[in-house]
């Protein structure tokens, strides 16, 4: 969609709210300030002002029709915070929704996010879902994918050309007290890279089939997961075997052994060529990276989130082109004084294989490190205060990305006051010590507000 149709659509949508019975406007206004003092560069001051704004207007003429808008804008009062641009903004979503009285059926039209199978997609288009008889459920969507910045003008042209259409659907089946299984399809772009006027090696289009499961046969077991296959056409490799078509396996099993004791285990596998299909950043998420990522892990949870929860966790990952990494540690989370006071503490150790570099100065370096985090938060109806500290120490300061530093830390202190039930102001002060800046101090002021006529429920 062009900028102009966006503006016209937005204006039309906002005008439509005039007929609404319940209008709920919410927003966050933020002013940030920090100075950057990088050794060898001039000091620069940044002062961006950011506005997030959302509108939910319900009962537009009929009970069933509603409108939902959300977006943000930013103006830099100091130096530009992003790539030479002093202002920026985005309409995150803006759609009309019709909700039927039966079958949880609904239709959405406009810009919205879809996550009904593989991935989370921003779409300008239309979507529909409904429950069917005998436990079936279907959903479909179609439209134009929201386009973002790519690398350089030539890539951007190919990327936009290939992103002409996105559509997909999912069929699920639910069995009472057993859970749900589903299959989904997603297609992004109608021309493959080989069909471009000038064939390109980078393919911005993708076709995926997904299968998902949530199996809860008894209260003590909760099993979720999904597998995604890449079903697009790819040229046969010139040598060797073709990489796996399985983009992703990701499964987690939770077993509640006793009311205050449970364990989880998980497994992931991602094959890069299949998983990275359709990326707009192929220089980073390289579809030509042969090989895969594999990870497995587990957790032991003791206690309850309502008072004291102790977690011990372990995770091992392996990326073919890099090697193995193991992460283990624990977290403690405590809630007390009628949930007014909360605190958390976590400590983790990560051990990795070395990064091998063809460089005489640093032939190889380790990524092993430790991380400690501690926070406390106090919140009454009227006032809030929090302190959040994180410290990371690195085994190998020869890592060229650390500028010779052995550790970094950051502390965030925040104070807030609720002025009226619908207006809250707060301020955060961040102090950081890291490899980049001589001194990293940031201030943030925040006003959150919500004006609503009749909405209840969560956030």
């Amino acid at each position, binding site marked *: 969609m062009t900028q102009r149709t966006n503006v016209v659509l937005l204006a039309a949508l906002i005008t439509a709210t005039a007929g609404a019975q319940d209008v709920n406007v919410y927003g966050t206004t933020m002013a940030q300030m920090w100075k950057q003092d990088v050794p060898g560069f001039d000091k620069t001051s940044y002062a961006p002002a950011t506005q997030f704004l959302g509108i939910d207007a319900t009962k537009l003429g009929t009970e069933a029709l509603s409108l939902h808008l959300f977006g943000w804008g930013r103006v830099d009062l100091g130096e530009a915070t992003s790539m030479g641009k002093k202002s920026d903004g985005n309409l995150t979503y803006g759609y009309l929704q019709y909700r039927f009285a039966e079958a949880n059926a609904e239709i959405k039209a406009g810009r919205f996010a879809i996550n009904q199978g593989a991935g989370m997609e921003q779409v300008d288009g239309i979507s529909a879902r409904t429950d069917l008889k005998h436990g079936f459920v279907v959903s479909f969507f179609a439209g134009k994918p929201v386009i973002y910045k790519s690398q350089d003008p030539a890539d951007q042209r190919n990327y936009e050309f290939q992103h002409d259409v996105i559509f997909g659907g999912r069929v699920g089946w639910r069995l009472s007290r057993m859970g749900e299984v589903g299959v989904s399809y997603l297609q992004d772009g109608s021309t493959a890279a080989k069909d471009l006027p000038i064939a390109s090696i980078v393919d911005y289009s993708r076709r995926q089939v997904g299968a998902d499961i949530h199996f809860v046969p008894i209260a003590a077991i909760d099993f979720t997961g999904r597998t995604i296959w890449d079903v697009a056409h790819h040229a046969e490799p010139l040598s060797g075997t073709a990489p796996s078509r399985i983009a992703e396996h990701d499964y987690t099993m939770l077993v509640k052994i006793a009311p205050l004791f449970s364990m989880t285990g998980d497994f992931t596998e991602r094959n890069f060529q299949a998983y990275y299909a359709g990326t707009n950043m192929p220089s980073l998420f390289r579809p030509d990276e042969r090989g895969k990522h594999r990870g497995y892990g587990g957790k032991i949870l003791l206690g309850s989130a309502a008072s004291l929860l102790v977690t011990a966790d372990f995770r091992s990952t392996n990326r073919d082109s890099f090697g193995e990494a193991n992460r283990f540690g624990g977290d403690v989370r405590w809630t007390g004084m009628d949930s007014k006071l909360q605190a958390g503490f976590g400590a983790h150790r990560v051990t990795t294989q070395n990064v091998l570099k063809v460089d005489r100065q640093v032939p190889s370096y380790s990524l092993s490190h430790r991380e400690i985090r501690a926070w406390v938060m106090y919140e009454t109806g009227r006032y809030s205060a929090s302190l959040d500290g994180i410290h990371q120490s690195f085994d190998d300061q020869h890592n060229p990305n650390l500028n010779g530093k052995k550790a970094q830390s950051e502390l*965030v202190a925040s104070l807030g006051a609720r002025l009226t039930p619908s207006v809250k102001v707060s301020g955060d002060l961040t102090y950081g010590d890291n490899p980049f800046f001589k001194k990293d101090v940031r201030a943030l002021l925040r006003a959150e507000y919500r004006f609503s006529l009749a909405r209840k429920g969560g956030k």
Partner: protein
Amino acid sequence: MNRRIALLSFAITLGLGVLTACGMVSTEKSFAAVHPQELGAGRPSCSVCHEDELKGSGKTYAAFNHSSTFVKDHKVQAGQDANVCATCHSQSFCADCHAGKTVMKPSTKLGGRPDRATPHPGNYLTMHRIEGKIDPSSCFKCHGRANNDKCTSCHR
């Protein structure tokens, strides 16, 4: 707009119409559009107030308890039960962590909420060079197809 999209949109509407005409659509009442009860602060445990099965979902309410495992692994449930999530969460809640294009790290926006499970707290420009190297595929779901203005100054 492009013809193909118009055709696809028409097909979706038609599909819904056919399902209804053939009497295949469920006749159960839809559940409340907005969660009828205001909830207190923090992650809710549904089974404190609800027993039994969440009508038509195939799952008990307890399967939606916001335990630390649920919060970390919400992806499958978000896909299967998006309409349940929508009774309490507007899409803007998800957009704090999942937006194609946003201005700041979730941990900056929610600076006064260390209890929230925001990705990459602390100075991530340093840490990401380590975590991204260990497993870039874990970053792909949020960064792989999004706006990457911020990343291209170093990654091109």
